């Protein structure tokens, strides 16, 4: 009797301590989550804070007179004349007219307010509309990247302003008259890479990423699922299959650059495929994602209850019918989720692509699987290392685009799972 009381007493006395322990344990969990969230928020605020200006462009509106004498051009449809013509002079003249305080000696300073590629824009516009010759038109051009930095980051210690005091006064003047304006940066989404920050865009990298991902999906998903089904459903249990299984798990842990080396040795050196093309990139990333897909697909097949299999077998279904009619449809959501996670991982890779030449300066947007291309994370890497400071905000903006891609892929994975999943 006394024994019982003392035990109950013991429990009662320890109860407080146990509650405390539990509270502490929960607090640890909350702290861990808080640290992770704080890190995430810091990262996001840093990227968004640095990068949102990358989505803005600075334009300069000019009254351009297409003066044939100034341009040494009579007929814009004659390619030979166009090649020899001067498309910079009318632009500089137009800036000069907009700024009455500028003199003849300021030509160079004036020229450095407009983007070096504005002359190509004017050329292309004239080739398309030869009737513009001799007229005066109001046209908008990209401003020089130094003007862009000045307008967006005046007084920001992280940027250095490269305009002279006189140029700054001119830009302030033009800005007051709404001739220099910032607007949404459509160039960023419609052009490929450029060494001029104002003209650089992510379209080439987005298309490159898409093409590479298509190859990866088309190859990795069927091969991975087929391998998983065979290993899980048909393969005999013996030393050989054990060996294969161990090696698939090992492959999942191999550093990604090794797959790049493999790709270089096999696809480029042995098969003679071209460098820097999405096909080779997709093949290398296929090798990299295969283990992930096989492992997650096998887990999905394993989670199909044996009762489903037994019931199908019970009514006389063959092994293949069991797999194709019952196991596969039930395991598909898990397989898809695993594949999309693997693809998202592949989307963020740069290391394996370095060796097969996809870390490259490529201006033209790729049009096919055999066109030279680069991918989004590589674009971020290249811009982050450029000497021009205006690329910092472009790199952050490109990170945001990449994050948007990743998030939509993960959202797709969740949606697919929700839609196809069946609970037991």
């Amino acid at each position: 009797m006394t024994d019982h009381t003392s035990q109950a007493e013991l429990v009662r006395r320890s109860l407080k301590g146990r509650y405390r322990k539990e509270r502490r344990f929960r607090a640890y969990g909350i702290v861990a989550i808080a640290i992770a969230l704080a890190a995430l928020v810091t990262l996001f605020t840093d990227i968004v804070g640095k990068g949102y200006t990358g989505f803005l462009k600075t334009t300069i509106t000019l009254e351009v007179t297409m003066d044939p004498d100034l341009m040494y051009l009579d007929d814009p449809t004659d390619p030979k004349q166009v090649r020899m013509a001067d498309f910079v002079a009318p632009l500089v003249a137009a800036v000069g007219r907009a700024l009455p305080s500028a003199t003849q000696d300021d030509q160079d300073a004036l020229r450095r307010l407009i983007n070096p590629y504005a002359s190509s824009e004017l050329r292309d516009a004239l080739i398309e509309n030869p009737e513009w010759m001799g007229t005066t038109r109001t046209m908008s051009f990209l401003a020089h990247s130094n003007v862009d930095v000045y307008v967006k980051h005046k007084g920001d210690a992280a940027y250095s302003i490269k305009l002279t005091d006189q140029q700054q006064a001119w830009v302030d003047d033009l800005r007051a008259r709404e001739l220099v304006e910032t607007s949404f940066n459509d160039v960023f989404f419609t052009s490929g890479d450029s060494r001029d920050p104002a003209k650089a865009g992510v379209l080439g990298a987005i298309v490159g990423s898409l093409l590479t991902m298509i190859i990866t999906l088309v190859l990795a998903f069927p091969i991975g699922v087929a391998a998983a089904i065979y290993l899980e459903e048909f393969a005999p249990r013996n030393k050989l299959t054990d060996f294969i299984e161990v090696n698939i798990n090992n492959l999942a842990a191999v550093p990604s650059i090794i797959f790049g080396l493999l790709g270089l040795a096999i696809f480029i050196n042995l098969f003679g495929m071209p460098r820097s093309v999405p096909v080779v990139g997709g093949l290398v990333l296929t090798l990299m994602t295969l283990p992930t897909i096989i492992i997650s697909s096998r887990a999905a097949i394993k989670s199909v209850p044996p009762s489903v299999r037994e019931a199908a077998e019970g009514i006389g279904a063959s092994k293949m019918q069991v797999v194709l009619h019952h196991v596969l449809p039930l395991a598909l959501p898990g397989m898809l989720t695993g594949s999309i996670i693997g693809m998202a991982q592949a989307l963020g890779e740069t290391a394996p692509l370095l060796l097969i030449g996809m870390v490259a300066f490529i201006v033209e947007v790729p049009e096919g699987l055999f066109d030279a291309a680069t991918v989004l994370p590589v674009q971020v890497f290249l811009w982050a290392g450029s000497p021009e400071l205006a690329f910092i905000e472009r790199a952050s903006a490109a990170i945001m685009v990449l994050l948007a891609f990743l998030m939509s892929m993960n959202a797709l994975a969740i949606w697919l799972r929700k839609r196809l999943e069946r609970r037991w």
Partner: protein
Amino acid sequence: MIKLNKTFATLALAGTVAVMSAPAMARDTISIVGSSTVYPFATVVAERFGSNTDFSTPKMESTGSGGGMKIFCQGIGTQNPDITNASRRMKSSEFELCQSNGVKDIVEFRIGSDGIVIASSQEADHMDLTLKQLFLALGEKVPQNGEWVANPNKNWSDVDSSLPNKPIRVMGPPPTSGTRDSFNELALEGGCDQLQEAESLSKDEHKAICQSIREDGAFIEAGENDNLIVQKLIGDKDMYGVFGYSFLEENADRLQAASLNGVEPTQANIAEDKYPVARSLFFYVKKAHVGVVPGIVEYASEFVSPRAMGPNGYLKDVGLIVPTREALMELQDKVENMPNLTLNELK
């Protein structure tokens, strides 16, 4: 479900066909590899070339000088690159590798120079270093009473009392970088050679001692990202950084550079070889690809044109130390004649 089966089969087949049909295609885009130092200049040329001619814009990979040579010398045929950039001259071993792989005719273009600067924040005191002082500050071993001992100098003033009484802390590129190679060779070995004690060293010892940077924390390896070094320098005025001249020029209002042997790193001093830590930049053209891949000669001719490399050229705007007028004329002759590089020139 048989449908599913068929879909899989079709997908797998389509994949296989896509892979197997990879032809050894004719290429109409010039492919360029090589030095990360030349990359910021060559890409500007490539882009102008693409936008002003009917040729497509060359594709450029930044592989480092050595990596570029290796890929360039792999052989002829369109799967190999046409041009390689280098921040040093081709080595005779690389030339021989090229020859043995059938890359017989190579044309060399020396396209100006790049200086390596030791920079700090504008707010720091200006430093005037000799190469000897630089070696005594950064060398792994320095002579003391006739013995080579691990570098004991903690502050700049320990090296020479005229220098500031501040800890030696220098950020620089990692050993994989061409900039680091040149810095070791030109700056450190240059300073080491002025020490009496270095004369008695054997050839191997000389290289091992004179080209080693200390690893006790005074020299901080900062990865290949020079922008990172620039940010650190702006934040910490006791810190010094080693990088290429173009990054100094881009941040001229916030950074200053130490003068070496009394010479400031300016465009003129580097171009005239007065600044001691300057190197030449090159690109090499594979002659067998001229006429196979369109635009190679035109690209080279754009690179050496006055509008690119002249005294007011666009490459000067991005920080290239442009060659003298005579050197530019020679380069233009070279584009016309395309003379082959010979092994004797490299020795």
